[in-house]
């Protein structure tokens, strides 16, 4: 960083819902090291950075809508001076009643946007006429992304009022757009660069923008580079998380456990603004079926407003919440019918038999992968044998109880906003034969740069070491979509391949003419270009092509085919394809303390034809553990003031190395190329495995259920913290006593 760099920090609200009576910043201005202080009035351009619809003030002016909202910002000569000064404001609030959870938001009839409904068949008739029916409520908690590297941005003023932003963001193009609008300058004057992120998980899709914009306002004002990095506790309090969800359902089914009809209302806790909540609640609705055919269904998705930080993307983007809702219902049906939950699941799988293959939004399931995948996993994990052993163990033991569960996932791949499904790439070949690659995707540890470089290396048949992937920059590939929705390799891989294909065609055209040889005799092989009987090193042909004035630079572009969704009729084909997987988790719980351990996990995941098995297995293991954390130990707690109490790893417990299973078997489902024309027939792998963490939660539920001989459903919301588990155990013990 240049030596004249300033350090910025945000002054945060200490009320969750209030009007600001007065904001006295004298002490901030006169604090040691302070160079500049800004309020909402100092923003030169756009003051609201809501990514889809307004509602997210860059700096709030007269009202506060969550504890930790930005009231002002300060720039000083050191990080500690800036942080210290940001705490010196004297703020007087007129407190207003705050709706801190979904229930309060619903009572207040407060929503960030209108409800959306998807419906198929006559639901009420189907449920009323089913042999059995159940109704209930279910809640799942939010989740902090807890990327190990917090939010950070640096704004560097350049000539002619231009601005260069280095930021830890999944969405450089949106950062560029918002910085430009906030500064009141053309998009073309702002360049955003993202070399890599230290984890993101959705938390840097829209919630990185605010810090980049604040740094940019200071940089424009002071003509000095400005860095803004949030301390962990403020990162927790002031940036969005996974949406908590509540659901109410009524389900009709037969004695075999087959669902006849499902009526479910999903309430997503959106926080104080819409942010990405519409698409997130939609994705929960799209996934309410998981792998199961629902003959008649009505799902309503409500977007509840609360006076908490605006919730945002987190790996799975609502999908896991929808799937968890139906997996809970499946468990309830299994208890009610006395059938093994795995059997109930299998009986409800989508199948072409009897045309049980259309989703509630009218997309036809074309590839039936889940059935053979689950059959395989049932065998490799020895599910039934172990289940028998566990039943015996539970009869023999009073205090410790074990549980086992298999849960599947079907995850829809594509942004549900059609226009976002596009990507660009830029490819240069230099005269030494080395290749520089750039694309719109960002690297956050998921291995995207490696995968896309592999694709280019494979196209030219050159060694991977010949490819350099440069930092994602808005001046290299413009108008990109966020690296999100598991789409990174699908979109950017195809765009890079398109660029490579163009360059290969140019090289072939040239060679055909230059060597007077038919096209069919030219091929790329192992660092060489073969022309007829001659073999030339790749770089020799490149040099030759350059001397014969062949352009060695190309852009590539891709847009996903086939997809659309009509919101009016709530039908369409929003997903290009589905990724599947299943996990078996085994747990042991202490029924007197509620403590538990996950003993063993077996996973089989469908990644199509894997682009890189090591990377894919890493995504699967990491995704599973993150999903397990969401449903077990990760609990967000707010004080009555609306202050987040669990604001760091000491109070918010993500899985540590001792919490993960010591036996962890992961297999990529073999011989299962994607039937759609994706990049080398691979499948997305980022989000789907997170959903498999549900098996840990259902395994715990299974262990608890043993207390009452599996006849009573445990009352267990998510996360299943030890406290929740103990309460569920106590409840079953008392029901047994009756």
């Amino acid at each position, binding site marked *: 960083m240049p030596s004249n760099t300033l350090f910025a920090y945000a002054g945060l609200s200490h009320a969750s819902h209030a009007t600001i009576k007065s904001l006295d910043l004298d002490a901030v201005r006169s604090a040691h090291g302070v160079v500049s202080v800004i309020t909402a009035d100092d923003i030169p351009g756009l003051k609201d950075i809501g990514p889809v619809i307004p509602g997210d003030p860059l700096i709030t002016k007269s009202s506060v809508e969550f504890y930790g909202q930005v009231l002002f910002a300060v720039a000083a000569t050191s990080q*500690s001076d800036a942080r210290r000064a940001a705490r010196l404001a004297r703020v007087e609030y007129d407190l207003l009643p705050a709706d801190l959870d979904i229930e309060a938001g619903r009572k207040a009839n407060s929503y960030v946007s209108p409800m959306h409904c998807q419906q198929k068949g006559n639901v009420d008739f189907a449920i009323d006429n089913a042999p059995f029916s159940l109704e209930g409520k279910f809640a799942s908690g939010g989740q902090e*992304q*807890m*990327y*190990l*590297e*917090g939010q950070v941005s640096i704004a560097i003023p350049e000539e002619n009022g231009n601005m260069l932003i280095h930021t830890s963001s999944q969405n450089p193009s949106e950062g560029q757009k918002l910085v430009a609008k906030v500064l009141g300058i053309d998009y073309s004057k702002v360049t955003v660069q993202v070399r*890599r*992120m*230290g*984890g993101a*998980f959705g938390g840097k899709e829209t919630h990185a923008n605010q810090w980049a914009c604040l740094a940019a306002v200071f940089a424009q004002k002071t003509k000095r580079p400005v860095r803004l990095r949030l*301390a*962990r*506790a403020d990162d927790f309090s002031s940036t969005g998380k996974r949406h908590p969800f509540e659901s109410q359902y009524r389900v009709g089914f037969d004695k075999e456990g087959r669902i006849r009809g499902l009526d479910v209302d999903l309430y997503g806790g959106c926080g104080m603004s819409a942010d990405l909540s519409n698409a997130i609640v939609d994705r929960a609705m799209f996934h309410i079926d998981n792998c199961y055919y629902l003959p008649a269904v009505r799902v309503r998705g409500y977007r509840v407003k609360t006076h908490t930080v605006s919730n945002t993307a987190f790996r799975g983007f609502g999908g896991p919440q929808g799937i968890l809702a139906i997996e809970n219902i499946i468990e309830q049906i299994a208890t009610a019918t006395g059938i093994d939950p795995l059997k109930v699941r299998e009986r409800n799988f989508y199948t072409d038999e009897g045309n049980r293959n259309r989703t509630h939004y009218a997309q036809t399931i074309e590839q039936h992968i889940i059935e053979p995948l689950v059959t395989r996993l049932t065998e490799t994990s020895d599910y039934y044998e172990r289940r028998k052993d566990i039943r015996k163990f539970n009869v023999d033991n009073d205090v410790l109880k074990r549980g086992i569960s298999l849960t599947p996932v079907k995850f829809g791949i594509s942004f549900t906003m059609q226009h976002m499904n596009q990507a660009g790439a830029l490819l240069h070949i230099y005269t030494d034969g080395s290749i520089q690659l750039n694309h719109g995707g960002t690297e*956050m*540890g*998921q*291995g995207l740069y490696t995968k896309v470089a592999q694709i280019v290396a494979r196209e030219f048949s050159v060694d991977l070491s010949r490819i350099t992937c440069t930092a994602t920059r808005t001046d290299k590939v413009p108008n990109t979509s966020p690296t999100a929705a598991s789409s990174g390799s699908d979109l950017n891989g195809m765009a890079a391949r398109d660029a490579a294909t163009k360059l290969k065609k140019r090289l072939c055209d040239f060679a055909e003419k230059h060597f007077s040889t038919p096209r069919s005799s030219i091929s790329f092989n192992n660092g060489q270009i073969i022309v007829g009987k001659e073999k030339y090193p790749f770089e020799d042909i490149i040099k030759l092509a350059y001397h014969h004035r062949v352009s060695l630079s190309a852009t590539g572009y891709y847009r996903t085919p086939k997809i659309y969704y009509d919101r009016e009729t709530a039908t369409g084909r929003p997903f290009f394809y589905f990724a599947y997987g299943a996990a078996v988790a085994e747990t042991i719980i202490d029924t007197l303390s509620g403590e538990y351990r996950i003993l063993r996990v077996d996973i089989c995941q469908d990644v199509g034809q894997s682009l890189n098995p*090591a*990377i894919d*297995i*890493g995504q699967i*293991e*990491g*995704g*599973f*553990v*993150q999903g397990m954390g969401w449903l077990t130990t990760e609990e967000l707690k707010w004080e009555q003031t609306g202050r987040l109490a669990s604001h*760091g*790893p*000491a109070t918010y417990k*993500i*899985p*540590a*190395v*001792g919490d*993960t299973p*010591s036996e*962890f078997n*992961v297999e990529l489902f073999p011989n299962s190329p994607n039937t759609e024309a994706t990049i080398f027939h691979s499948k997305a792998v980022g989000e789907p495995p997170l959903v498999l963490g549900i098996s840990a939660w259902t395994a715990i539920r299974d262990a608890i259920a043993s207390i009452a001989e599996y006849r009573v459903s445990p009352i267990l919301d998510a996360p299943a913290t030890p406290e929740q588990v103990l309460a569920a155990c106590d409840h079953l013990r008392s029901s047994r006593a009756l």
Partner: protein
Amino acid sequence: MAKTHVTTTINGDLKEFLCEPGDTLLQVLRDELGLTGTKEGCGSGDCGACSVLINDRLVCSCLVLGVETNGDVIETVEGIGDSDKLHVIQEKFLEHAALQCGICTPGLVVSTKALLEENPNPTEEEARYYLAGNLCRCTGYDKIIKAVLDAAETMRESA
């Protein structure tokens, strides 16, 4: 505020620096000395990303003040292997693909080195117990444990 003069040995070299009384060792390493391999994950001693060795003792450098380290021998990730020749632990992390975003990796490499110096032949449980202070949000830890145990074996063989 008056700055204090501190003399330490870092990665084998004598290092002098000036720091304010409130500056943490982490701040000194990163901002004063440019040793940015040590990462700040939480700043509260709960994640282990800033792990370093002080006089062979594993600590979170965010919980140590710079002024406290006068006369100490400090080892950071930069002192473990170099870009020409990686340490066995680093090689094994790469071989097992035991890292994704990489922010936890330097701390884990330092902690693993401390573990293997204390206990060259740890059981899996001992390794998990020792590394419990190093959080990773990406990998799910399985590959990390495999890398650590593999590194232990390789180091025992070459010892």
